[in-house]
């Protein structure tokens, strides 16, 4: 399908992901167990980095091209993982076992994708080598492709991977697949384009160890997550949701240096041939050769359980060093104070420690004397942990780590100077924290230079994750803030900033001089505690104000009250001050604002608004913007000459545009709706960039948040300890930003449809697991249908093949958000697990679902059209509530409740349109509203040691089964034999008078039975002997005849039976023949279609080849 021919009916979506440095594309590898996911992952990693991973866990980021990075993540077979991965993946490699066919998980996953916005999907068929016969292989491929296409779309990409070579898929096939991935274009998805999110590729526990120890590991943790931001800008103050854990609060967000940066021209230039093959990989959760490394730490996997006293486990140098680190029982300061560092071997006095900033100097050259004391050594290595100087390689004695692997990735994003070295690393200036930037003078080996630094990194230091031991030797490479980057770039592109040094100085001067006159509104409003009036009245008086504050030790408390009521009122209009307005009588003043009116002369203050005020607003903005930018850059063209020139140029430009508009083809310049919108969006995006360009990074983050594509470290507080204790890198860890509206709780009304493959019906008030937004939770829905737009009527069960509404309590999601629902997420749940899908329609704080209730009563006294009814209500109060309500009898006579009666309690008088019977049942149809239960149970699967074993609220039936209980039996509900007394009806009596008037036909013709015998009855009959004989003879003849007929019939039946058998035999023969014939025909037809298809395919494949 080409883009040109496709009709676009929707307005375009804004893509909020920046183009220049987009976050890595998330490629998820999904499939049933044993299908070859890990093999594919390793093959892909191998393809991109030329490295082989032993164990691939968690997200793995690689650079895949000039402008592209990819984060691979393997999704295990847990339903929770599939849901979470489906919400963040940009591209899904859906693995299918070709020798087996589709499995239930595949379809479940596709349904999950569908309800949360469909990312791109590429099918990958594996295990095709298991099919030996070529014909069968071809058929299988075709059948699978057909099914795949119906499931996704006609023409969806499906890859075939043949066998496994050396534990990997064939390189050529992988290369092919990687090419497809690299050209893939991604459409923005609505939900992801309105929420910030992050796929954590690293997690650290920052809780103080002591606190953990004291609480036996049960205290809430402080945790940092690291990852690339995606979606929209992440701002401080937004709540985040970690699926599987819950809603958490962000304490801080820090922008870190990119651990897997895109190659730029500069880095390419410096890349050596030897390095060419080693490309970047960032996978902190994966195990790379026993040492896990990333930008700011090195982890050593220690075999077995790492206990300190364990002497029999062989301990390498690294472990020993780590243990040394742990042995420290004095602070750095103590250590420094005690240390006896001599500058030279011949020095007579050790260096004294001056607890001031000059301390740094004392430390700058002690590498020679370092190994003097063991104690000191320990201290120093601790220092390294804190302050990331690279002296460990330099000293060479500390750790013999795999230097290649260690140093290689570091070199890439750090200082460009030490790329591609093969010899031990040249000591260079460590990139450093911003705050200590200024007090560094040399580029030598350095240690912790201030206590504040120490304090900060201290947190990071004591954070063991699992059994990992880590010494963050290069911590601040990550902390590397933009100032560093600026520094570097500044250093390289010195000419540029030098070029307009003068201009900058001028601008600075201007600003400085203006500052005296002008207020700094931002800081006055946001950073001062002055009252609004104080801000407005004068900045000069601020100082006096301050003095006043000092003086007014005793202030008159009710001063403000004394000013008067009117002053304090919350008013929109400011009171008109007549005296002040008197000044407008002054002619001069009146004339001074003349230029604000169109009739006034145009002053040079407003050149833009002069000629083309009918211009589009946007255009005007742009001119303005550019003008501003120009001013910034070139420090205001001061002389009027240039100003006039620019004004002239602008005018010319406007005239040209006008001319073009008039004389160019109007059709070509006219954009359709889609294009217009797109242009508008592009303009707005440009403005977004430009507006805060000149603001420094930190302030910008405050105003607009962290942009997608940045690598951030998010510190979360009050995280349940189980998340850390039971952390498993194979389960994806996602941090989803939550909109303010989504933090709240309420009733959600959704449109829902039971999935056609889900075998059971869904029942109202049965708990259901929803996957909605970022969240997964269990809630109790009530199903309903709109009843003639009058009421929402409760349904007991979801209807077949039809949408219905469901209402449940839970965290609010924006209308139009898709969701899917499950009855159980357990692996062992039989059948298709996605039980329903739908979309959010409405959120509210109350619901209006009703169910019908019928109140019945019986009449106990009947007048003409009035009856007294009892047994419907229990009290007169209840009756009063229903006065005027419509009632009806079973026979259909309608009536109305009138008034309560005194006795018996709860009875009332009612009128009907006709006389009711005593046997009639009277009922009142009412609607009873049922609010959904306020039940919300988040699925905390990541907190469990066995992630798949989460169990929520059970169904009543399940509870009963588990507890061995029987369903309670209400005596009144049991079936009993109904004994009905036979009804006796009174005879119909027609009054004489009426009877007399009736026509004969209608007259009742009931006559009394005759009580006297008739004449004939009275007479006796006596037969003559001949007559008797004749009668007897006749009887005998009749008997004979009967017998004869019976015999004849039997004979006839026998003959018929024979005939029937014969016919049946013939019939059977005939059908056999028919069958044979049909079979023959079908075979021929099948062959023909097959041949046709083949012909067709051959042609199309040929055509494809030609293309």
């Amino acid at each position, binding site marked *: 399908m080409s883009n040109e021919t496709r009709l676009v009916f929707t307005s375009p979506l804004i893509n909020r992901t920046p183009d220049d440095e987009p976050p890595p594309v998330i490629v998820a590898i999904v499939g049933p167990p044993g299908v070859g996911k890990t093999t594919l992952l390793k093959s892909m990693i191998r393809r991109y980095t030329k490295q082989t991973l032993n164990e691939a866990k968690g997200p793995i980021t690689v650079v895949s091209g000039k402008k592209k990075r990819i984060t691979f993540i393997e999704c295990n077979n847990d339903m929770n993982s599939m849901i979470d991965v489906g919400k963040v993946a940009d591209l899904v490699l859906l693995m299918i076992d070709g020798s087996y066919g589709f499995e239930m998980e595949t379809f479940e996953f596709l349904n999950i994708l569908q309800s949360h916005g469909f990312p791109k999907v590429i099918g990958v068929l594996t295990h095709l080598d298991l099919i030996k016969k070529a014909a069968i292989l071809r058929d299988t491929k075709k059948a699978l492709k057909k099914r795949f296409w119906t499931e996704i779309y006609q023409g969806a990409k499906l890859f075939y991977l043949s066998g496994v070579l050396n534990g990997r898929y064939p390189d050529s096939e992988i290369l092919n697949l990687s090419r497809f991935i690299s050209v893939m274009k991604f459409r923005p998805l609505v939900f992801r384009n309105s929420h910030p999110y992050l796929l954590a590729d690293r997690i650290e526990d920052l809780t103080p160890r002591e606190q953990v120890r004291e609480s036996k590991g049960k205290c809430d943790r402080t945790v940092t997550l690291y990852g690339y931001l995606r979606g929209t800008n992440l701002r401080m103050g937004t*709540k985040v949701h970690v699926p599987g854990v819950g809603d958490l609060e962000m304490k801080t967000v820090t922008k870190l240096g990119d651990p897997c940066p895109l190659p730029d021209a500069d880095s390419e230039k410096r890349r050596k041939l030897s390095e060419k093959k080693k490309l970047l990989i960032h996978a902190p959760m994966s195990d790379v050769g026993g040492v896990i490394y990333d930008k700011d730490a090195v982890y050593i996997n220690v075999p077995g359980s790492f206990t300190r006293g364990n002497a029999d486990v062989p301990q390498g140098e690294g472990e020993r060093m780590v243990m040394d680190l742990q042995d420290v029982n004095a602070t750095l300061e103590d250590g420094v104070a005690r240390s006896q560092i001599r500058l030279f071997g011949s020095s007579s006095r050790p260096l004294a420690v001056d607890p001031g900033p000059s301390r740094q100097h004392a430390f700058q050259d002690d590498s020679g004397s370092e190994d003097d004391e063991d104690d000191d050594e320990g201290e120093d290595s601790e220092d390294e942990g804190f302050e990331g100087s690279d002296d460990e390689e330099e000293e060479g004695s500390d750790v013999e780590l795999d230097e290649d692997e260690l140093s290689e990735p570091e070199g890439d994003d750090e200082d460009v100077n030490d790329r591609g070295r093969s010899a031990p690393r040249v000591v260079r200036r460590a990139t450093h924290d911003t705050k200590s930037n200024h007090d560094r003078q040399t580029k030598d080996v350095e240690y912790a230079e201030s206590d504040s630094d120490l304090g900060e990194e201290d947190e990071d230091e004591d954070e063991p994750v699992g059994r990992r031991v880590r010494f963050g030797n290069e911590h601040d490479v990550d902390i590397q803030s933009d100032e560093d980057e600026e520094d570097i770039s500044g250093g390289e592109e010195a000419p540029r900033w030098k070029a307009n040094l003068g201009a900058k100085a001028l601008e600075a001067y201007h600003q400085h001089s203006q500052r005296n006159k002008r207020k700094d509104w931002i800081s006055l409003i946001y950073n001062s505690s002055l009252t609004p009036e104080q801000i407005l009245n004068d900045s000069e008086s601020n100082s006096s104000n301050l003095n006043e504050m000092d003086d007014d030790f005793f202030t008159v408390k009710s001063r403000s*009250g004394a000013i008067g009521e009117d002053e304090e009122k919350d008013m929109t209009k400011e009171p008109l001050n007549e005296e002040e307005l008197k000044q407008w009588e002054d002619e001069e003043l009146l004339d001074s604002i003349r230029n604000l009116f169109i009739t006034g002369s145009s002053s040079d203050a407003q050149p833009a*608004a002069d000629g083309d005020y009918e211009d589009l607003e946007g255009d005007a903005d742009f001119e303005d913007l550019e003008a501003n930018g120009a001013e910034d850059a070139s420090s205001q063209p001061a002389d009027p000459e240039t100003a006039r020139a620019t004004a002239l140029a602008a005018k010319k430009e406007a005239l040209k545009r006008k001319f073009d508009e008039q004389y160019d083809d109007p059709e070509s310049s006219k954009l359709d709706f889609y294009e217009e919108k797109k242009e508008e969006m592009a303009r707005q995006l440009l403005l*977004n960039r430009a507006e805060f360009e000149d603001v420094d990074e930190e302030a910008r983050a405050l105003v607009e948040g962290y942009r997608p594509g940045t690598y951030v470290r998010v510190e979360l507080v009050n995280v349940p300890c189980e998340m850390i204790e039971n952390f498993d890198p194979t389960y994806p860890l996602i941090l989803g930003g939550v909109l303010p509206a989504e933090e709240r709780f309420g009733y959600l009304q959704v449109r829902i449809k039971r999935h056609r493959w889900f075998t059971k019906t869904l029942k109202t008030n049965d708990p259901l697991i929803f996957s909605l937004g970022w969240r997964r939770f269990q809630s109790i829905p009530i199903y309903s249908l709109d009843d003639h737009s009058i009421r929402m009527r409760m349904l007991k069960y979801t209807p077949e093949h039809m949408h219905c509404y469901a209402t449940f309590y839970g965290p609010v999601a*924006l209308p139009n958000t898709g969701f899917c629902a499950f009855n159980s997420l357990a692996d062992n749940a039989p059948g298709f697990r996605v039980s329903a899908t739908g979309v959010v329609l409405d959120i509210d704080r109350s619901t209006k679902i009703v169910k019908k209730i019928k109140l019945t009563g019986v009449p106990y006294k009947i007048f003409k059209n009035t009856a007294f009814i009892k047994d419907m209500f229990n009290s007169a109060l209840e009756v009063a509530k229903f006065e005027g309500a419509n009632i009806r009898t079973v026979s259909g006579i309608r009536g109305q409740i009138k008034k309560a009666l005194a006795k018996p309690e709860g009875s009332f008088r009612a009128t009907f349109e006709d006389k009711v019977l005593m046997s009639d049942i009277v009922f009142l149809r009412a609607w009873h509203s049922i609010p959904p239960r306020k039940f919300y149970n988040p699925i905390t699967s990541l907190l469990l040691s066995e992630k798949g074993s989460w169990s929520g609220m059970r169904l009543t039936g399940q509870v009963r089964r588990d507890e061995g209980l029987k369903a309670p039996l209400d005596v009144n509900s049991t079936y009993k034999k109904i004994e009905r007394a036979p009804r006796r009806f009174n005879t119909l009596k027609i009054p004489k008078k009426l009877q007399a008037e009736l026509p004969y036909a209608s007259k009742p013709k009931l006559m009394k039975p005759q009580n006297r015998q008739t004449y004939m009855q009275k007479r006796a009959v006596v037969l003559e002997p001949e007559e008797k004989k004749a009668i007897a003879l006749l009887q005998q003849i009749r008997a004979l005849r009967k017998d004869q007929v019976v015999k004849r019939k039997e004979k006839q039946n026998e003959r018929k039976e024979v005939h029937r058998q014969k016919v049946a035999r013939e019939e059977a023969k005939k059908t056999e023949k028919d069958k044979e014939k049909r079979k023959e025909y079908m075979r021929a037809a099948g062959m023909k279609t097959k041949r046709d298809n083949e012909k067709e395919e051959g042609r199309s494949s040929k055509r494809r080849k030609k293309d």
Partner: protein
Amino acid sequence: MPSASTSVLHFSGHQHLRYRLVLSIISGKPVKIDKIRSDDKNPGLRDYEVSLLRLLERVTNGTIIEISVTGTTILLKPGIIAGGPIAHECPLSRSIGYFLEPIIMLAPFAKKPLNLTIRGITSDDQDLSVDLMRTVTLPHLQLFGVSEGLELRIKKRGSSPGGGGEVQFLCPVVKQVKTVNFVDNGRIKRIRGIAHAVRVSPQFSNRMIEASRSVLNRYIPDIYLYSDVYKGEDSGKSPGYALSLLAESTTGAIHCAEAVSKPGVTPEDIALLASRALLKEVSRGGCIDRKHQTLALLWMVLGSEDVGRVRMGEPSPRTIQFLRDVRDFFGTSFKIVPADKSDPDCSELLFSCYGTGYVNANRSLA
């Protein structure tokens, strides 16, 4: 339970009560306001404030308002903005403007289009009169894409102290307000005004028009001042007259001013007062009227996740406090720089902010 009880924001004092309540309802964050006139002889909430709370409760669904026994502390747990047909009776201590201003801020984010009938005093000297609301506030809403079906009908006028006026406010529902980019204030191209007089001689309004023209005619010929007379039932219970003026620029920026009759002041003086106030307002510059700064800033914050920019005159004290409160509620702070960097005595400021991407979650699809 994931923090269903979000942290309650605390404020003190009765000042700025209205928009703090509005911010709370829009942001969904509960707010606690204490020390409401706690030092006053007559402590606690005033009748009009209670009436406002009642109105807000009616406009929303699920809002919980707790007022302490003394009335000096209120706790508002906001629900959702429901909208729909509502009628409200204002006390005679404040005009309709006091109640309508916060409602206008909320109304486009409701579930159903709002149809509010509100009775009371239509114009006084403290809050915007209904004339200005109709002619100035509603065009300001249109900047943000709220236009279709937006209407304010003045059915009856009612002057202070008797009241008896009635207006109907119809407001549509939007999904999201547009991001504004209004930095060109243009130049004033026309001046309009409404002079109304109820239960006094209809000549009064003509006298006001005459006097106002004497000041404004020097600037621009395009001046139309309407004399709006309501008679009989529609003219309320008390006599009064007022002049509302507005100046519209070439780019659509509107500035307004008005003056309301006071006992013992001639209509001419009222008109002069209004005209001069208008000139003062115009001289302040900017694209947004000073009385509508808070409205514009609030909706800029609520815009899509893009940069919105607006040029304004010096902020009023209310606006400054409002900016601070907005930061507490939404975490959004504005970038405020002089609009014209080259001109040292330019008092106009450029307010820009990054919208929060507020989407009207209340709007239903069904």
